[in-house]
């Protein structure tokens, strides 16, 4: 404490008054707390920390970063509390201005960036070290110290690729989002387990059909819950044998709170990309406390409700996959099939079926599913209610002079006047270097410059007017589409999104660190094993780029002829022992 008192005033530290009147601090120009209401933020953060500690049954909590007001509100945690604050300046500023006398009576505070000093604390030699949680801002300020400490809580952790299980929904528009996320994470070098739940889709459809009989409708929810439990148990079974570092679930993924809680007990970090309108899809509130982080697409309006529900929310807008949505040359046959002045591709939501007929006279073609098959739609749909693959969708985009993009709404008659988030189609059309005319959205200008990278409309008259104008001005269309394409490629791919997501998770309050050894590739072992001809012969049976995990060993050994060789058996022994150890380490091994 004396050292803190004597510390000279840190020029990096700025003390400010927040709008609520409470103290707010900026460190190195970066806001340490909310500039609006830091006390409320601290209250929520403290509640979050206490709940995480409670869930983990941790009697010891190590808090990285002291925050400004957080410690005042951490009375719900009654175990041993160690706070490590890397910045002496911040500690001094807080201690001078915030009354922490009650809190300090029950916590131990270690200040400074000296790792050795922090590690001298007895907690780091205790058998049960408890739980390490971090103030995101402190983690951002002193990443190296944080990771070095986290290593003590997660032995074997290294700043290396993560083992990620991407959990898709059973059906719907978020399935391709999950697939694209998995591809992007793989491209970023992470080990990705793509979970295919398509086998359960027929079961879900059967439940849906059953519920259409009005007498059986009340059963629908319990049947869906039952199916969710089956899927959850199946996934848990797999993950208990070999837990990933991160579960990255995409909106609609069939994981219930019980399953998520048990995943948390396995030490798996749980993230959800809720890429839906929170006002329409309400199920997020049941899951809010079960995920460590919820990524969402409505930064302004959803952040508050998420916080109130006890969730840690991080905005993560939609994106596109440049391998799927890209400029292409169409064949003459494709041109014959798809070429048109204006097209719209999407599902037949209420607002769209109200809005679009007014444009049929301008030659609008409609693609997608769930549209009424009666007039006037029957005449405007060359492929009525056919689900288009991503490749065909890209052909439709590229073959249309103007692509109309109208965000869906189940209640508006046309354009949603309070629409905020930007749909994937916006990014996909930009990625395909296609000119688009999109309904006005509050967040659109965060991603594209309106007028130079895309065009918008606020009502049907403006839409008609701009359609006419841009059909007559092909050069302007190309220029705008090219600008959008450049912007999309440099900022809006799923790879960008996944980079942001992993960074946010790494800087979030729950440490996300690879917990297990990252296995070598088959090729790297082959290179190093010149004097092991038996082993080399086995390993050359599988792709050199493959990670040398249990599956690769099974494949290599199983591809051999005749009785097992000694080296094959030794590899099997390593595989079996490794999987047994994983299970044993989770279970402990008392008498």
């Amino acid at each position, binding site marked *: 404490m004396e050292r803190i008192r004597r510390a000279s005033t840190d020029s990096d530290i700025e003390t400010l008054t927040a709008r609520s009147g409470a103290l707010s601090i900026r460190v190195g120009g970066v806001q340490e707390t909310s500039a609006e209401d830091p006390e409320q933020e601290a209250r929520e953060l403290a509640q979050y920390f206490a709940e995480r500690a409670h869930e983990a049954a941790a009697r010891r909590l190590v808090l990285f970063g002291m925050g400004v007001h957080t410690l005042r509100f951490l009375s719900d945690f009654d175990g041993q509390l160690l706070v490590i604050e890397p910045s002496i300046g911040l500690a001094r500023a807080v201690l001078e201005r915030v009354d922490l006398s009650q809190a300090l009576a029950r916590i131990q505070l270690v200040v400074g960036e000296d790792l050795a000093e922090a590690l001298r604390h007895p907690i780091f030699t205790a*058998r049960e070290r408890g739980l390490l949680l971090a103030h995101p801002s402190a983690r951002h300020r002193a990443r190296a110290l944080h990771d070095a400490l986290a290593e003590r809580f997660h032995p*074997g952790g*290294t700043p*290396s690729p993560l083992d990620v299980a991407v959990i898709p929904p059973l059906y719907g528009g978020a399935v391709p989002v999950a697939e694209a996320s998995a591809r992007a994470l793989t491209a970023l070098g992470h080990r990705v387990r793509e979970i295919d739940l398509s086998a359960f889709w027929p079961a879900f459809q059967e439940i849906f059909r059953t519920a259409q009989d009005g007498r059986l409708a009340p059963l629908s929810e319990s049947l869906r819950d039952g199916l969710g439990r089956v899927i959850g*148990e199946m996934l848990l*079974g797999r993950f208990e044998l070999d837990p990933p570092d991160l579960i990255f679930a995409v909106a609609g993924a069939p994981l219930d709170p*019980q399953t998520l809680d048990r995943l948390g007990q396995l030490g798996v970090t749980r993230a959800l990309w809720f890429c839906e309108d929170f006002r329409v899809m309400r199920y997020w509130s049941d899951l809010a406390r079960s995920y460590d982080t919820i990524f969402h697409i409505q930064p302004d309006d959803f952040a508050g409700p998420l916080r109130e529900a006890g969730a840690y929310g991080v905005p993560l807008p939609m994106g596109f996959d440049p391998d799927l949505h890209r400029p292409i040359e169409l064949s003459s046959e494709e041109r014959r099939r798809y070429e048109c002045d204006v097209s719209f591709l999407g599902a037949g939501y209420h607002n769209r079926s109200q809005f679009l007929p007014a444009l049929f006279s301008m030659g609008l073609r409609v693609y997608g599913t769930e549209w009424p098959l009666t007039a006037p739609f029957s005449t405007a749909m060359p492929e009525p209610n056919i689900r288009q693959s991503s490749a065909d969708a890209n052909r439709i985009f590229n073959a249309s002079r103007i692509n109309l993009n109208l965000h869906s709404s189940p209640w508006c008659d046309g354009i949603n006047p309070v629409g905020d988030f930007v749909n994937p189609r916006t990014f996909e059309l930009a990625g395909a270097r296609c000119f688009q005319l999109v309904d006005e959205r509050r967040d659109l200008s965060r991603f594209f410059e309106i007028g130079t990278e895309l065009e918008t409309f606020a009502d049907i008259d403006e839409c008609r007017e701009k359609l006419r104008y841009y059909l007559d001005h092909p050069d302007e269309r190309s220029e705008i589409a090219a600008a959008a394409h450049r912007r999309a490629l440099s900022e809006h791919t799923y790879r960008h999104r996944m980079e942001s997501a992993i960074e946010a998770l790494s800087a979030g309050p729950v440490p996300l660190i690879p917990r*297990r*050894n*990252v*296995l*070598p590739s088959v090729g790297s*072992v082959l290179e*190093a*094993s010149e004097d*092991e001809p038996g*082993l080399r012969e086995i390993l050359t049976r599988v792709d050199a780029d493959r990670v*040398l995990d249990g599956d690769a060993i099974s494949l290599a*050994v*199983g591809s051999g002829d*005749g*009785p*097992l060789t*000694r080296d*094959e*058996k*030794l*590899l*099997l*022994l*390593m595989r*079996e*022992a*490794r999987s*047994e*150890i*994983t299970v*044993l*380490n989770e*279970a*402990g*091994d*008392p*008498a």
Partner: protein
Amino acid sequence: MKRIGILNLTRFGDLIQTTPVLAGLRKRHPDAEIHLIVKTRFREAAEMLPGVDEIHEIDGDALARLLVDPDSNFLDAFRTVRYLVDELSRVHFDVLFNFTHSRTSAVLLSLLDADHTVGYDLDRRGSRRVENPWLQHMSSLVRARRVTRYNLVDIYLGAAGLIGCGEPLYVQVPPRARAFALERLPANVPLVAVQLGASTDTKAWAVSRYAESLNALARLVPEMRAVLVGVPAEKQLAHELRNACPEVAFEELVGETSIAELAGVIERCDVLLTADTGTMHLAGAVGTTTCSIFVGLGNPWETAVYAEGHWALSSRIGCAPCHHFAKCGFPACHEDVPADWLAELIARILRGEDPGTLPALPRADLLRTSFDEHGLLDLLPAHRRAPRPHDLMAVAYRAVFLESLAGRPLSLEQIWREGERRYGVSPQHWAELLPGGIVERLHRLEETARSGEEAARRLARGRPDPAEARRAGDLLRQCDERTYDIARSEPLLAPLGLSLEAALESLPEASLPVIAQRSADEYAALRRRAALLRDIIAPHPTRKGLAT
């Protein structure tokens, strides 16, 4: 027989359960060397086992570090594993038993140098196989837990050809361990050892239940001392227990004993209160009476103490014991033994009175360990009750499988007597206490088995052309499927399907006639079992006595 090896890479409780096999082998082969291969952390336990000439260690912890440490190199790990196997392979075994139920141990067994192996092994293609019929029967034991009733020690003894050899659990307690116990425990007071944790949470009884029982016991036997034992990870449980029992006098040794010292401590105690744990087997081996609460995964029929006169409590709830893959969110079985009743039971053990005269519990059975006329461990219920269907079938299966596994002659009258003795059920009432249709299903199983047997024998006798062989193969496959379907359709018949499945999966790698002959034998065994069960359940009016 020069050298016999036993591979046991399990926990110390399982090691202690191999002591009857060790003693039996020692008697049968007095001049042979007996080697034990164990995990390093259980070497101390292995040193207490009698009749072992040499102990080989596998340092599982070091291996674990090597295989999961991010800094270790794959090639180094490969070479270390090879070195470990090479060192073990220097010893040539005439016979090597594997009593570890893991695939790791099966791969290891296949790598070691033995003329003959018994237990979990690999075939030439790397699939797991179990040739010994007793160990094959483990799959029924594990998957049809309510109707298959053999103690694990009897399975081991059967696998070693020693069934009914009369050898008990036994460990040699080192003098230093006895001295430790003398020093740490008071004299002249009743000592009740309490083991709170278990190898998995799904076997451990709730701490709150222990606490209520000890509080009640302290009221009945105020001079009693509760001796808390366990591993360091169980200290928190001990802390919770002590907080909940302010009136109980404790001697806390949790995390403070080696395995040998634990043996010394348990030997000094008058009774051990525990769930299904290694400490329970240790108590059986040092002659201390146990009172074991089997909850969750614990099944007294499989793992009760292999010695006479121990007490096991087992819930009568419909789901007990848990299936091995079950994850119970509502462990109601923990609530089925009232604290006051349990305290009275332990008090009677301490006073040398018969606990069997306590009133019956509505939701739990009190079972006493004993040995049956074949020398197999049996559990005798302290109170006669109306049987549940699986109770009756378990009596039948135990005799039917003993005939095929150990060649013990089976007497229908003896089985019926057993039904009368345990449950008061006379032969003519068996069928009405069992689900309708069971006799008809057994008849269909018998017929299916007969078809399978005939097809397999034709295949074994003749020299079929490829088309004939294919037809016979198809017919056999149909018989297999039909058998499994019938057996799965009635849970009480599951062991019949499981036993055929386990036997066919482990057929030897041999010529077609040999495999066909073995398949025919397995079908014949199935037919025999189904016929016997049918005779037991629905006795033929003219048939008496020995089954044919």
